[in-house]
């Protein structure tokens, strides 16, 4: 039915099967939109956030997906600026992932703020000292960059290519790709950092507060490194998942290994920087504010296990696995390590968002707990469903993996040879 939209030389499942695949995600999206609608119409009283837990599941989601979506800018940087040509095999997929992550995060932010119609106030009355201003500016600009980067991928669709002006436009747009990669990298560096700075500057929350360099707290730099580290891991993970679900070879194993090596290297740098930062915080920053760091971990369930999990289990171990060539060549190890790295960054964002707010600051304060309402969870799930849907549609109708056709031919040749050999014996 939709064959004329599917790229030549690649095979996709039937339309009925595709509709069957997207149906549950559409249902989830509808449920999520209903949840978000309730929050917009009735107000944020639909959530379980309160005056003390002013941030909840949504901000955790935002920080996490933006870190995971960092693969878009970092792969672009490696491919177009550092000329790692092997990564052209995944760049289109990375752009779609980035677009999904950033647009999803912005959509959730629009529900999360009390007065979404005042979003333009930040541009009209910007407070240049606020990290949130920097985040708003950079994310808005970068989403525009991602949308422009997505356009050539979209216009290369088999049907759209038949429109000559689209073809010319796509060709002209492609010439800009180096500029876009540079601008995207610059913007991403800043907003990834600013997201870390959001918490690092909170003098009133000594659990999150960090010293730093000039106006930037150390979390500014840690967020940049961690996002750059897990971005390639998330691309590796999603590529592997898509290969499994679609039962196709989409990239050569060497590409996944290269992504793993880059991720492992940056993760190792992150683990080292995070360790140094933690030691400075434990021994100087926090005690100076009157909060001996050990007391944070006396409030259960946030024991020291969380530090161990963040730095060793989901940091050092996946870094070592991805840096060891023998283990990297084994897909199971490589994918597991990439998944652990992604979990590690999610845990880090959870700690900064949830643990920071749960810990008491006043002596007569209580340790607080928070559990998201179904409306919050529904909105969260809407972003997941939206991501899967956009990626599924893009995968079906656009060329997300340029090597797919070539690899398909190779697989067919291999099968042919096997058949011949089987006939011979």
């Amino acid at each position, binding site marked *: 039915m939709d064959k004329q939209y599917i790229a030549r030389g690649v095979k996709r499942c039937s339309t009925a099967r595709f509709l069957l695949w997207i149906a549950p995600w559409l249902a989830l999206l509808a449920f999520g939109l209903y949840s978000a609608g309730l929050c917009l119409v009735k*107000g*944020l*009283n639909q959530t379980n*956030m*309160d*005056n*003390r*837990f*002013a*941030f909840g599941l949504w901000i955790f989601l935002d920080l996490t997906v933006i870190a995971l979506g960092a693969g878009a800018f970092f792969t672009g940087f490696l491919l177009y600026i550092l000329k790692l040509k092997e990564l052209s095999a995944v760049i289109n997929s990375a752009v779609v992932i980035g677009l999904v992550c950033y647009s999803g995060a912005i959509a959730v932010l629009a529900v*999360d*703020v*009390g*007065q979404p119609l*005042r*979003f333009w*106030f*930040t541009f*009209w*009355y*910007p*407070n240049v*000292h*606020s*990290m*949130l*201003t920097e985040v*708003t500016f950079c994310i808005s600009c970068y989403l525009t960059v991602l949308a422009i980067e997505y356009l050539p991928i979209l216009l290369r669709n088999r049907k759209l290519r038949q429109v000559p002006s689209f073809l010319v436009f796509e060709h002209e747009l492609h010439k800009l790709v180096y500029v876009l990669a540079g601008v995207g990298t610059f913007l991403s560096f800043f907003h990834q950092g600013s997201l870390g700075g*959001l918490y690092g*500057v*909170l*003098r*009133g*929350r*000594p659990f999150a507060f960090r010293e730093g360099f000039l106006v930037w707290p150390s979390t500014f730099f840690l967020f940049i490194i961690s996002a750059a580290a897990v971005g390639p891991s998330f691309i590796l993970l999603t590529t592997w998942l898509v290969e499994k679900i679609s039962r196709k070879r989409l990239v050569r194993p060497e590409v996944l290994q290269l992504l793993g090596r880059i991720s492992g290297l940056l993760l190792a740098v992150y683990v080292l920087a995070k360790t140094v930062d933690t030691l400075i915080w434990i021994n100087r920053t926090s005690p*100076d*504010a*009157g*909060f*001996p760091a050990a*007391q944070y971990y*006396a*409030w259960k369930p946030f024991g020291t296990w969380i530090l161990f999990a963040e730095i060793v289990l989901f940091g050092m171990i996946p870094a070592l696995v991805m840096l060891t060539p023998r283990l990297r060549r084994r897909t199971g190890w490589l994918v597991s390590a990439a998944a652990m790295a992604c979990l590690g960054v999610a845990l880090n964002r959870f700690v900064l968002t949830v643990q*920071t*707010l749960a810990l*008491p*600051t*006043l*002596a*007569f*304060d*209580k*340790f*607080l707990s928070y559990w998201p309402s179904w409306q919050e969870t529904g909105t969260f799930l809407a972003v997941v469903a939206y991501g899967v849907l956009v990626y599924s549609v893009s995968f079906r109708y656009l060329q997300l993996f340029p090597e797919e056709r070539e690899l398909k031919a190779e697989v067919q040749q291999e099968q042919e040879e096997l058949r011949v050999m089987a006939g011979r014996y």
Partner: protein
Amino acid sequence: MTSEKKPGKTARYGMMIDVDRCTGCGACMVACAVENNIPPAHDGADDRNGITWIRVFQVDNGQDYPNRRSAFVPVLCQQCGKDAPCVAVCPQQAVQVDPATGIVGQMPERCLGCRYCMAACPYHARYFNWWDPAWPAGMEKTLNPDVAPRMRGVVEKCNFCHGRWHAAKQLAAADGHAIEAVDYVPACVEACPTGAIRFGDLNQPESAPAQAAKNGNCFRLLEKIGTEPKIYYRSKKDWVRQIASAPKPGQIAPKLAGKETSRG
């Protein structure tokens, strides 16, 4: 406050709260709500999502009877005098410090409702309007015409009764002089039956807060953070003064098990 004060000279409004005098009656909370048009709590609101610009916490020394002692600590915006955590973080300058008074002001009309300032405030003195403000039929006639009610989805907090300050400023201008701190007092100060809350200009050495700043029995909450709060607390009891410091799980926290007074 002295009459020699030159018009236009900047002030640093602050408070001194005598914890030993506070009976926890909650009159300050009620007076504040009435003065500042804080709507009645919505159905389903609790102590974590309701609005009260000043909140009285009950603390005790953790001892068993007959050695158990209690105290009440009213907590409001501490009007940080240096690097106020909420000011720098607001992305659209909805929080500003008035250089003439040192009051940290919130502009609900410009607030996006991102709640970053609430996460930044270590004193939990900022409140979000989770519901549309609503008054039972007839009760809207009690609204203070000098204070605009806030809408759903914005943050608000204590501003030392800005409506009163504005009225006092106009009166002072009509009399041909600049406003002095003694020209007005916030509603909580006026309502306190024991005179536990006193208001004044920290730049005036004889004012109650300025005197408190020099008193050994006075303390400020979380001083080590370096925000220079302008609310001073006073108590002659050592265990009460300990509440100024950070919580220490397993040591001080159980002894100072805080709970809000039921009168609030």
